[in-house]
């Protein structure tokens, strides 16, 4: 298994040499959403706290680093960490309120959605950050400004983000922290009864997750060069973040990556296919149907199912 992963990574590292620029773009989306999905996976998958407002962290991270770069001249390489820290601060607030007041399941979902929507409305109505028109970053092509002429640079950064987040999640899974998170997901009361400070670990998971997501915001900003409150804080982005780990297998290390490899090309294809002539909502319909299908037929996601097949084949 380990050698398979190393081989896959080697292939991905070498791949851009043969891909055309468009295929590189598709891969960037695969890696980037796998990264965001992985960050979400920690809270939503392992700890079982469904957050449907992760777009808020992307948005905070994106706006923070973009504004710092435009107004204070701070390089996004540092702004990235600032954005992550701010997102983590927001994550702390959301997590504190949610976990301290014991909001579970549906109530927690509502809380996260409400926070994301508030961020969106505030950004829409604050002229200093561009308001409804959005915030634009001028392209200079300067690597110190996190801008590259060559698409492949973004490819490697996105790949690096994905691998780093996966490494973090894998490390957490193997430690006591990860075991606690899974225990919280499976039976929080029993976990508390055994003396685990569930509040502390849920908070920790939330902080790590929102920090990573906020770092992703910088990539979002300096890859797309424009920030629109409705897209960077909107529900559709939260759905994009949530759906990949769920399809791939929430609470598994490779689930978000698998989910992103399945979904991102599909999303891209349907965007191209349905993109013209008023069919802009079509790929979200497809997501909805897929979500329904996964819940009904594959509630644990694709990765555990594949694994079962694998084990079965190995036994024979």
């Amino acid at each position, binding site marked *: 298994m380990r050698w398979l992963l190393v081989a896959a990574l080697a292939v991905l590292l070498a791949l851009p040499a043969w891909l055309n620029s468009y295929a590189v773009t598709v891969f960037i989306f695969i890696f980037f959403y796998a990264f965001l999905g992985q960050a979400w996976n920690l809270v939503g998958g392992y700890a079982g706290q469904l957050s449907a407002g992760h777009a808020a962290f992307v948005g905070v991270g994106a706006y923070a680093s973009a504004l710092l770069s435009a107004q204070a001249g701070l390089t996004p390489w540092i702004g990235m960490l600032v954005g992550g820290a701010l997102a983590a601060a927001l994550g702390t607030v959301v997590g504190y309120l949610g976990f301290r007041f014991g909001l579970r399941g549906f109530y927690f979902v*509502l809380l996260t959605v*409400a926070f994301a929507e508030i961020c969106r409305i505030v950004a829409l109505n604050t002229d200093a950050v561009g308001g409804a028109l959005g915030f634009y970053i001028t392209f200079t092509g300067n690597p110190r400004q996190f801008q590259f002429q060559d698409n492949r640079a973004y490819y490697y950064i996105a790949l690096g983000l994905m691998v780093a987040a996966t490494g973090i999640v894998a490390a957490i899974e193997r430690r006591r922290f990860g075991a606690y998170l899974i225990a919280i997901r499976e039976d929080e009361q029993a976990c508390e009864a055994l003396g685990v400070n569930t509040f502390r670990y849920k908070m920790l998971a939330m902080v790590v997750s929102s920090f990573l997501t906020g770092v992703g915001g910088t990539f979002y900003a300096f890859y797309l060069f424009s920030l629109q409150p409705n897209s960077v804080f909107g529900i559709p982005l939260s759905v994009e973040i949530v759906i990949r780990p769920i399809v791939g297998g929430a609470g598994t290390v490779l689930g978000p990556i698998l989910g992103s490899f399945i979904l991102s090309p599909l999303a891209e294809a349907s965007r191209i296919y349905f993109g013209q002539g008023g069919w802009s909502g079509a790929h979200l319909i497809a997501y*909805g149907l897929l979500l*329904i299908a*996964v819940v*009904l037929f594959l509630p644990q996601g694709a990765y555990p199912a594949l694994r079962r097949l694998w084990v079965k084949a190995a036994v024979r």
Partner: protein
Amino acid sequence: MAVGLTLIFGVMRVVNFAHGDMMVWGMYLAWLLATRAGVDPYVGFVACAAVLFGLGVLIQRLLVDRIVDAPHEMQILLMLGVALVLENGALVAFGPDPQRVRSPLRAATIWLGPVFVDVARLITFVLAMALTLALYLFLSRTDLGRTMRAAADNAYGALVIGADVRRVYAVAFGIGAACVGAAGALVSPIVPFQPAGGLGLSVASFNIVIIGGMGSLPGAFLGGLLVSVAESLGALFLSPSMKELVSFSLLILILLFRPAGLFGKAAS
């Protein structure tokens, strides 16, 4: 419309994320009836309710039924999926532009004692009152209504004494959907609507239901009054685009401090 959500949640403990989107569909159905067949929305709402009843029963039978015992997360995801399909289905079918149904009654106004009321709003209000009352009577007086409340209190117990709980669930979901359909049709001449409005409507109705207390019909009605007053006050003091801010902030406050609502029994 919150009445519909209360019913679904109260009886089945399934959270309907698609609520606002169902309402948007009710509005578009009323619009279709009005523009294509020339049916006034104040008559057409019956048809809208009927169609949404069918849709509700279908969703319940085909989807929710299979996972009613599954963890809460799964139901949330399922309904999120349904909401996505409905919202974007409306987007594809009707386009992103806001619509409004024209009713001849829209322009008419009358003096009602000392206040000046437009007829459209008055009719909407009266019909909504009547529907709520009818639903209340249905739940408290008829056999099916009583079974529904029994299933809400204790599904297993209701099953033991021979109630067809699955059928009860389907009817409850259907009636809940029918309520939103009717509500959507009734407000369609008053407020402009668009496919993207579903989420806002869902949040508004969650607010109402949670404030009023999950599963309590009179609570939902009072909650509705409270929330709309709060939102109009917000619109008055802040800019209109910030109006939504009020409802989301309200939602957070309610979630934190009164999760069982002002009139609800106990926290679940």
